[in-house]
């Protein structure tokens, strides 16, 4: 009896399912010329507006949402929902809103902004900027178009927070994963795990934008297929061009390659136990590794050595005197090891992941060079999920990591080297450097750029001595596109993952 029911039920469900796939809603197909097809590297794990949910999610979020500010193609701050912003001598920030409408036609008001900030501030919000926004002590809305923010102490980098793609403003009372926003595109349809289609928002506050009628964001999880799809003309733009394919895309007359140096690879240490609790040992590791080989092996020559803190040389905060402080010098490495009491070297494990070739290759090169100064490294290469967990728990001695800072301001490096923050796989484990934490805090309270430069120079000096992380190499981050795509740009440096903001200017020539 049970069987029959089961089989019948089974047949009924499969039958119904089969019928479903053929009776899907009829969608009018858009004209080819008005649709830009964007190849995502993965399906967004969520559309949570304020969570850090990766590049692909960020790209979709900036299609539909806008924050108070954003970055232009050169990486400079610009107004979005806020037309202008200003700070007084007491460090009180005032944002003046423009006339903008939500996708549902209602106006964007100061109340919406205040509600958004209050939601993100909640201790359990799990928002990317929860810690930062928690320093905002009062939010005042004198009228519908003005928002006044007071912080516990002056915050020079506050505008950067509100330009982040994980800090869009939502309409008061919205669900966090609702893509109903004030951005240039509205959601048209979502095929979970497959594609997200958005269409131009006619009420968008920028005259004449967006330039395309529709964007179809299609997921190509396999990097080779993503490039194949671009070459075959199935998509117009792809993110995350794999390094081995950059030359091939760049040399193809039908395609364009747009890359920037921004994200970087580095080593984190478990300093909760010997030997890496000793800064001499950490510096020895830095002097033992020849960075050019990492750039060659992991990034097909699309990388550049990084022998200091990841502050790019184009930044106003770059310190040329520290540029090669962690240079390749095996003799110096051995001397430092001997000074630390490990003249004969030691054994240790290095955590990386086999899921991403660049992480594995980086680890293999480091392993080879460390063996030359007597450090015998055993590689631990689990898949990414396990690597994240082990990193958070400190189940490693050394670990390979790759990331981009939160923004191009040196304050963005706090997530990487401020040991006073909670334990995390993007930072070394159990490695607190009070001086560094204090200097970060101090840097945020100063508004004068020259004064700030002095603070971050001091910070880098301390970091060079204590090695809270060990820089390895910069890596190029690239978008590939068809030759007829205009207006879409890869934002400079650490902002590369914000590039989706320029989709409003993108068009097919």
């Amino acid at each position, binding site marked *: 009896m049970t*069987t029959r029911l089961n089989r019948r039920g089974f047949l009924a469900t499969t039958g119904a*399912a089969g019928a479903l796939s053929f009776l899907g809603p009829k969608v009018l197909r858009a004209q080819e010329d008005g649709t830009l097809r964007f190849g995502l590297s993965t399906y967004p*794990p969520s559309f949570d507006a304020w969570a850090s949910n990766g590049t692909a999610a960020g790209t979709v979020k900036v299609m539909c949402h806008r924050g108070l500010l954003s970055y232009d193609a050169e990486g400079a701050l610009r107004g979005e929902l806020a037309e202008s912003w200003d700070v007084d001598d007491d460090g009180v920030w005032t944002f003046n809103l423009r006339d903008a409408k939500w996708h549902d036609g209602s106006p964007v008001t100061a109340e919406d902004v205040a509600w958004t900030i209050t939601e993100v501030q909640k201790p359990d919000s799990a928002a990317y900027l929860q810690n930062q926004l928690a320093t905002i002590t009062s939010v005042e809305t004198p009228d519908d178009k003005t928002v006044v923010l007071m912080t516990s102490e002056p915050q020079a980098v506050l505008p950067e927070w509100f330009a982040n793609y994980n800090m869009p403003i939502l309409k008061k009372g919205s669900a966090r994963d609702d893509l109903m926003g004030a951005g240039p595109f509205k959601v048209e349809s979502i095929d979970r795990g497959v594609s997200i289609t958005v269409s131009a928002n006619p009420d968008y506050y920028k005259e004449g934008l967006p330039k395309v009628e529709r964007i179809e964001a299609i997921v190509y999880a396999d990097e080779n*297929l993503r490039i*194949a*799809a671009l070459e*075959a003309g199935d998509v117009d733009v792809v993110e995350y061009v794999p390094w081995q394919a950059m030359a091939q895309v760049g040399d193809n007359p039908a395609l364009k390659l747009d890359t920037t140096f921004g994200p970087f690879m580095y080593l984190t240490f478990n300093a909760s136990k010997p030997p890496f609790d000793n800064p001499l040992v950490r510096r020895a590791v830095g002097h033992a590794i020849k960075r050019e080989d990492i750039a060659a092996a992991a990034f097909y020559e699309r990388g550049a050595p990084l022998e200091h803190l990841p502050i790019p040389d184009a930044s106003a905060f770059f310190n040329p005197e520290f540029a090669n402080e962690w240079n390749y010098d095996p003799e110096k490495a051995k001397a430092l090891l001997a000074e630390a009491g490990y003249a004969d070297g030691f054994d240790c494990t290095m955590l990386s992941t086999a899921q991403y070739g660049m992480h594995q290759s980086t680890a293999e090169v480091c392993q080879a060079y460390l063996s030359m100064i007597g450090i015998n490294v055993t590689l631990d290469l689990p898949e990414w999920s396990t690597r994240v967990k*082990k990193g958070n728990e400190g189940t490693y001695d050394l670990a390979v990591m790759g990331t981009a800072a939160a923004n191009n301001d040196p304050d963005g490096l706090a997530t990487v080297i401020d040991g006073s923050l909670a334990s995390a*796989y*993007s930072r070394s484990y159990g490695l607190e450097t009070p001086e560094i934490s204090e200097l970060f805090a101090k840097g945020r309270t100063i508004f004068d750029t020259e004064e700030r430069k002095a603070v971050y120079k001091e910070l880098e000096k301390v970091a060079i001595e204590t090695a809270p992380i060990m820089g390895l190499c910069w890596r190029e981050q690239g978008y590939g596109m068809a030759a007829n795509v205009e207006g879409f740009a890869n934002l400079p440096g650490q902002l590369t993952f914000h590039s989706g903001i320029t989709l409003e200017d993108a068009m097919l020539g």
Partner: protein
Amino acid sequence: MLRYIALRSLVALFLVWVVVTVVFLLLHLIPGDPAELLLSTGNIAADPAAVAALREKMGLNEPLWQQYLSHMAGVLSGDLGASFRDGASVSGQIAQRLPRTLEVILAAALIATGIGVPLGSYAAVRADGKADAAISFFASAALSTPVFVVGSVVILIFAQQLKWLPAGGFVDFSDDPLEHLKLLLLPAGTVALALLAVIIRMSRASVLEVLQRDYVRTARAKGLSRGPILRRHVVRNALIPVLTVLGLEMGTLIGGTVLVEFVFNWPGLSGYLVSAVDARDYPEVVGIVMTISVLFVFLNLVVDVVNALLDPRISLVTS
């Protein structure tokens, strides 16, 4: 007969339960925490308090046996739960994706049978000749080339070089039938190639065996020409074992399409399993594995029953 079917079904149900239990336990044994993963994408550390709150919400703080029991209770009442990632209904996802996977497999089976049976029969008729050698060599090559190699090569040829077909992706049949079929062609062809080898070998062996039978000799003695003999007597009888094998292979293919779906970006069920495991999305993984195992044992059951009906030599009680 009914008793046989009932008995076999009970065994099948037991098997499904074992598979689901093992998968459930394995998932919880391997490291990786779904809550932590959800909150720590984009290289940003997850806040421990937020992770703890999410774990509580997901019910991951209960003892394992309690989680298992409540999950099983859900399964028995037909509720496969909701995705950890975005709360989408697991059964809804399966209903949407399973037909897509089945479509690839069925299309592959059609292609493989359509090409494999004639090729295999021809090789048997020309046994030990040049054509036979060539066909057998092709079958061995098709069987031993990994699916992702075949996939990458056909994408390179048909999409990147010739630009005849899209590299991969999916469009609903109802939206654009022609585009849908175009997109189906490469993945189905890739799956078909692996299947083709089995069909060719099976048809060849089976036709060879039938050719030795008395009734074929009788037909020849009656002066029938070779074409009608093959069509009417040989191939028809030789097809039974081929279809049995095809039925069994279909079950294997459900698992075998994982790579193909990944390579061609075909949003079916098996490819989705990979991303669910990656995200440690427990309800989705268990739901998908259960669906695949149900299908698998169901197919085997059907094949056994059909064989039992066709061949009285198979004892219904002891098999």
